[in-house]
């Protein structure tokens, strides 16, 4: 079995988000970066668990600059066998997907894993795009994955429920909560991660047809209106007359 796990680097969940003066670029100064939680907790850990049970190789892939290697080494410490970094600034989901697809095209991966979305662009786009480039089935929001030979049994989260499905290898999957539990890398993992192979690959050309022209911060809340805990009639009145939500 050969698994590819695509990992993204995102600002830490508690990071304060700001932009440069004209709002065209994210201001990374002072921001702590982490591996996108869904990629780490769910996709990567599940791929490693299946490799541990059935054998095979887990390749972690990141599209990003050399500075991302700390995040990539963490993926190796958690359990990936080797890593690939496509040396480019991941300008957009479409760009990133094109790079991953170009790399994976002739590698014969059995499953290509993604997290259900990134916590910076919240797009849920890259997995679907890679699946389309490679003409593979795509199962998104998977909360359970088991392999029986060449057939995967998957549970997929849908609005208000769960879909149980089957698909033959190879395919593309995005992982959601339920798939696995977060793993803290142990000392041995951290030590061996240093010597595991990390290959740098050069990007392919891509014509952008979408770009962010402006970032803004949401308007600040007017401030909380405190209501006497003894007087819930007043809250009901405000929700009805002022907020008009009931």
């Amino acid at each position, binding site marked *: 079995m050969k698994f590819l796990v695509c990992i993204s680097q995102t*600002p830490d*969940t*508690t990071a304060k988000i700001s932009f440069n003066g004209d709002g065209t670029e994210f201001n990374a100064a002072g921001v702590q970066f982490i591996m996108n*939680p*869904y990629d780490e*907790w769910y996709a990567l850990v599940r791929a490693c668990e299946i490799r541990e049970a059935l054998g095979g190789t887990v390749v972690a892939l990141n599209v990003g600059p050399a500075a991302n290697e700390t995040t990539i080494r963490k993926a190796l410490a958690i359990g990936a066998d080797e890593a690939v970094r496509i040396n480019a600034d991941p300008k957009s*989901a*479409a760009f990133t*997907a094109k790079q991953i697809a170009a790399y994976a095209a002739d590698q014969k991966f059995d499953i290509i894993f993604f997290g259900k979305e990134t*916590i*910076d662009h*919240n*797009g*849920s*786009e890259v997995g*679907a*795009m890679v*699946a*389309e480039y490679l*003409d593979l*089935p*795509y*199962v*998104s*929001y998977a909360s359970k994955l088991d392999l029986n030979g060449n057939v995967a049994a998957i549970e997929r*989260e*849908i*609005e*208000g*429920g769960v*879909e*149980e*499905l*089957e698909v*033959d290898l190879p*395919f593309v999957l995005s992982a959601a909560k*339920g798939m696995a539990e977060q793993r803290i890398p142990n000392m041995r993992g951290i030590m061996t991660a240093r010597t595991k192979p990390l290959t740098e690959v050069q990007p392919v050309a891509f014509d952008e*047809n*979408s770009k*962010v*022209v*402006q*970032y803004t911060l*949401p308007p600040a809340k*007017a401030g*909380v*209106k*405190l*209501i006497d*805990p*003894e007087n*819930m*009639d007043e*809250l*009901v009145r*405000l929700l*009805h007359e002022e*907020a008009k*939500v*009931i």
Partner: protein
Amino acid sequence: MVLVFAESPRGQFKKAAFEAVTYGKKAADILGVSCVAITLGSVKDAGELGKYGASRVLNVSDNAYDHFDSQAYTSAIADIAKQVGAKLVVVSHSSTGKAVAGRLAVRLNGGLVSGANSLPVVSGNGIRVKKSVFSGKAIAEFELSASVNVLSLMGNAVKPEVSGAAVSVENVSVNSQKGRVRVKSVRTQEGIVPLPEAEMVVSAGRGMKEPGNWNIVEDLAAVLGATTACSRPVADSHWRPHHEHVGQTGIAIRPNLYIAIGISGAIQHLAGVNNSKVIVVINKDPEAPFFKAADYGIVGDLFDVVPRLTQALKKFKSQG
């Protein structure tokens, strides 16, 4: 032409489909074109989409579409987009729409905004559309410059609006790929509005002390007709089912009303709920960070306040 894919899980439209067509109609007016809706598989009352602004409603009646497969759906929608000469393709930002939007953009060689929450504005090089990014902490405006572009529309971003009359459904055939995902079963909870679609949400956290106390939360939700949600530690300790977990690592929601009970308002929790229109916070700690994100706050013991609020709402409802 704006093409809207109106999804019909298990043969029926939900609010998401009416929102998408309403949005498609408004976008079509802005772009000076018409709005056409496409439905896949067996669908009840597909012609109703005319009421929300579709000038034509197309259906591919093949029952192979009764189960979702992203490849089969994408190839069918893309084929129709080519047949009708679509400039903009709109899908819902749902479990179905998210799995096709990226595929469609690649197949049509188009730009994509996933989770769009504003109407398009015509600009020099194409159209501009906004979406929420950084888990609700910022807004990004995208410019799409391809000749066909794709949007997935965030739930609750527009209200379904009736602007016309039902139309008759046209059966069409498509040149599409066969799905390779085999759906074995679908389990859904009946009678509850799923969180991503809910207009009102009553959510509770660790301040509830133990799972046996949730009846006061359920009573409040029942008078409002709201869906219940919870914070992450509550789901992690199995006090409540996982699908109720909202926040950065759970479900992101944007209801009209979000009532947070005994939740401190950690940044990761806020990331999933800060797009709610109105936030009410009930917490005994006046310093709880959630009050900074709230519209209305009640500093008090939830075990007193919540039943009192339920009573007040019952009184309000009975006065009609």
